[in-house]
């Protein structure tokens, strides 16, 4: 029996001026997600504070033309959220998928629309189902009233209400046209999941056609009448301040309208993007390089090393046989294919912002605080987000320039800007120690990590983020994971997988080291430390079976395992890799995942394929600082994985009927250790740091 819906003030119905039925619902689970610590229980949600005024935060519009429109309150950046949220609604509403439309919700000051932490489905699954069930009940009531038959004799099916006894049918569009007195039905019931028709199927992406025809509008595609284009010269040195500038040449460049000082540097405003780029190149700017002019990533790394050394020195000795190892990873850039950009149109009494943002509320509040005006934020499609578009730097720049110019402005970042002025994934330094008794039973585990927190403009996190994914997944009696926060002036931000990725790299490689030292099979060793009830068992077992773990591989190839539990999902990967001509070659990756109930299996595969590429890329690139400056600038020195480097990927879902868990970041943490362990299996070489350098691959 499905649970009864209990909240009477959950939903309000009304008609729009155009005669469409508008259903406003309150999604009470819209709690700040932030970055959750790994857990296999669903992401916790908070209880809403009682509200005197009904403020719906979810809207469904059912029109007489049969269209059912869900106003999407999360940002679409490739993870398929527009499609999967609409699927959940359509399932309970018994809508005809062909009639489903989506529109993007503008920022609503009272809501939390942040798209982060792989949480959109986890958080919205239950409320969307309830809203759909409520809407279905409203339509059933309207039909029953129209036909003067008992409600129980009517049912919803494929966008129609059907009265089986009489054979009468009314479509949702027809019902909206004739319904007069729409009643809420608080006895509305959720569907039994075994009756799901849409959830669990690979519905194609709702934006697919717009994308392949070039009609999809990303932030950079927004065009307004009279819009000007702007670039900004920012201090090349972290924290540098503008002294003065000579704009003579820049302002004489064709198409350049004006050069202005803004709080973040010097803006070149032009009639087109090219002129704005050329104008900036012609600027002469003097910077006061400030106190960070000698900053290097090596000096930051040294602080992490010093911190770890100081805490390790306090570790007491043990009678067990022990091994220790150091693992480390660098700063990393997001490098979204769509560069950050924003259109701002500041008027005397308000401002409109069009932004590819994961964080509409912070864009709204930060720009409002800067301009002291009411701000409307329109969320566009995002050409990739990965955490970069949680920050508010680029909308602030656009708003400031638009206000100064009294014109709509599109701020354009070049790839150099993007690579050199990101909020980076943090650098990390890990110390691990394992100890075992005379029988080879692992009894001691230490994993100390030193890393910066997140110190963005809008987004901050401390020790919690360093601790993400730090706990080893296996049962070890004396187990102590410890995060140490070491702050840095380098701007940092959430990056797909955040610190779950380096922490999984260290844990899953070091467990492999211990297995090798004890001459145990890495798979059997792991399984031996997982209780019968541990959900990782089934996931890892399936991976081993699908990857033919233990079978012979081509000469020079090796197998490696990587696992992680993150945002409620349980993931295992087995990579097959080799080292050829001094370079790592990943041949195949088998991934198994338990992410709870699956909304759209093909999108699970897409996200895993994508996160494997994201993780593999992270093994071979880095952001470094010298003299306070980022050393990398474009894809020649911050290379992304190429098609020729792409491994074969197989994704298998371990069925589980608990509610849906996180997915968008899940594949990033396990791929790095899986490949590193495969390299060891193939060559005997241990990879303990990324990026993997040629000298790290020299045979012993």
């Amino acid at each position, binding site marked *: 029996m499905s649970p009864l819906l209990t909240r009477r003030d959950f939903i309000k119905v009304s008609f729009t001026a155009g005669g469409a039925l508008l259903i406003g619902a309150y999604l009470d689970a819209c709690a700040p997600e932030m970055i959750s610590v790994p857990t296999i229980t669903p992401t916790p949600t908070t209880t809403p504070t009682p509200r005197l005024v009904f403020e719906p935060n979810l809207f469904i519009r059912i029109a007489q033309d049969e269209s059912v429109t869900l106003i999407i309150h999360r940002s*679409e*950046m*490739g*993870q*398929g959220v527009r499609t999967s949220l609409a699927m959940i609604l359509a399932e309970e509403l018994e809508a005809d998928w062909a009639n489903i439309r989506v529109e993007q919700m503008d920022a609503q000051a009272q809501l939390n629309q942040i798209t982060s932490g792989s949480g959109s489905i986890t958080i919205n699954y239950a409320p969307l189902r309830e809203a759909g069930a409520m809407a279905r009940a409203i339509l059933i009531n309207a039909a029953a009233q129209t036909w003067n038959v008992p409600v129980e004799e009517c049912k919803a099916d494929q966008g129609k209400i059907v009265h089986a006894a009489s054979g009468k049918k009314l479509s949702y569009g027809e019902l909206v046209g004739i319904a007069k007195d729409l009643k809420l039905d608080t006895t509305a019931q959720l569907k039994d999941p075994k009756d799901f028709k849409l959830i669990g199927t*690979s519905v*194609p*992406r709702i*934006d*697919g*056609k*717009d*994308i*392949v*025809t*070039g*009609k*999809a509008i*990303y932030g*950079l595609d927004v*065009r307004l009448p009279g819009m000007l*284009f702007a670039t900004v010269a920012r201090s090349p040195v972290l924290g540098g301040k503008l002294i003065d500038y000579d704009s003579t040449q820049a302002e004489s460049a*064709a*198409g350049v309208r004006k050069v202005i000082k803004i709080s973040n540097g010097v803006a070149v405003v032009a*009639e*087109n*993007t*090219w002129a704005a*780029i*050329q104008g900036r190149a012609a600027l002469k700017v003097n910077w006061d390089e400030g106190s960070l002019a000698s900053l290097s990533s090596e000096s930051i790394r040294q602080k992490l090393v010093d911190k770890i050394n100081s805490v390790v020195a306090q570790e007491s000795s043990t009678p067990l046989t022990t091994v220790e190892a150091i693992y480390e990873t660098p700063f990393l850039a997001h490098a*979204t*294919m*769509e*560069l950050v950009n924003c259109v701002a149109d500041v008027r005397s009494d308000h401002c409109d912002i069009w932004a590819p943002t994961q964080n509409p509320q912070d864009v709204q509040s930060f720009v409002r605080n800067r301009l002291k005006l009411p701000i409307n934020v329109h969320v566009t*499609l*995002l*050409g*990739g*987000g*990965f955490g970069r578009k949680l920050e508010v730097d680029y909308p602030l720049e656009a708003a400031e320039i638009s206000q100064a110019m009294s014109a709509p402005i599109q701020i354009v970042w*070049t*790839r150099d800007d993007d690579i050199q002025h990101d909020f980076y994934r943090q650098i990390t330094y890990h110390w691990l120690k394992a100890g075992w008794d005379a029988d080879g039973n692992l009894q001691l585990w230490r994993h100390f990590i030193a890393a910066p927190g997140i110190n963005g403009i809008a987004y901050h996190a401390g020790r919690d983020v360093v601790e993400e994914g730090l706990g080893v997944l296996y049962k070890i009696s004396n187990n102590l994971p410890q995060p140490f926060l070491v702050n840095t002036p380098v701007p940092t931000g959430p990056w797909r997988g955040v610190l779950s990725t380096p922490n999984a790299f260290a844990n899953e490689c070091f467990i492999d080291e211990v297995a090798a030292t004890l001459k145990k099979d890495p798979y059997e060793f792991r399984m031996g430390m997982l209780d019968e009830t541990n959900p990782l068992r089934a996931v890892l077992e399936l991976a081993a079976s699908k990857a033919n773990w233990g079978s012979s591989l081509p000469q020079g190839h090796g197998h490696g395992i990587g696992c992680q539990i993150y945002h409620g999902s349980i993931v295992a990967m087995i990579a097959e890799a080799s080292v050829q001509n001094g370079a790592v070659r990943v041949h195949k990756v088998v991934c198994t995942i338990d992410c709870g109930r699956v909304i759209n299996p*093909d999108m699970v595969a*897409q996200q895993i*394929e*994508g*996160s*494997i*590429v*994201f993780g593999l890329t992270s093994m071979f690139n880095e952001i470094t600082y010298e003299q306070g400056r980022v050393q990398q600038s*474009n*894809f*020649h020195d911050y290379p*992304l*994985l*190429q*098609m*020729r480097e*792409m491994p*074969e990927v197989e994704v298998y879902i371990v069925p589980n009927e608990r509610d849906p868990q996180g997915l968008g970041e899940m594949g990033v943490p396990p791929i790095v250790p899986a490949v590193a362990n495969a390299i060891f299996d193939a060559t005997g070489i241990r990879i303990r740091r990324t990026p993997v350098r040629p000298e790290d691959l020299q045979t012993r």
Partner: protein
Amino acid sequence: MAKFNLTVNSSAFTIEADPNMPLLWVLRDLLNLTGTKFGCGVGLCGACAVLIDGEATRSCITPLSTLADKPITTIEGLSTDGEHKVQQAWLAEAVPQCGYCQTGKIMNTVALLDKNLHPTDAEIDAAFENHLCRCGTYLRIRRAIHHAAEGG
């Protein structure tokens, strides 16, 4: 500034602009054809690929002055409503994630299949050197190219 006659998607345009302005910005900012994307500005990612005289070309490093009398095709001119076999293959294989770079990938594929009816994986990989996708859709791009090559 100088005047140039361009043929884009079978329509003639007279453009008055800096001769060095890359085609990318002519398309996006002057002709409002925003389906062609800016990714790196230096010819390293392929998001800006269009067809010039049938050849896949990175529009971000192709100056306006080199384009007189050469027919240019962008994603907007490939079909009226996404019916081109490559676009259909992209949908059938569910290639796009964020989708931002995909129009460049589609144009590059159109040029590839024009020369090579049945490319191998190795030939596809070679044609897609420095065509980057941060969402990691490479496996599906390969599948979609085979799908289109086999006539859908």
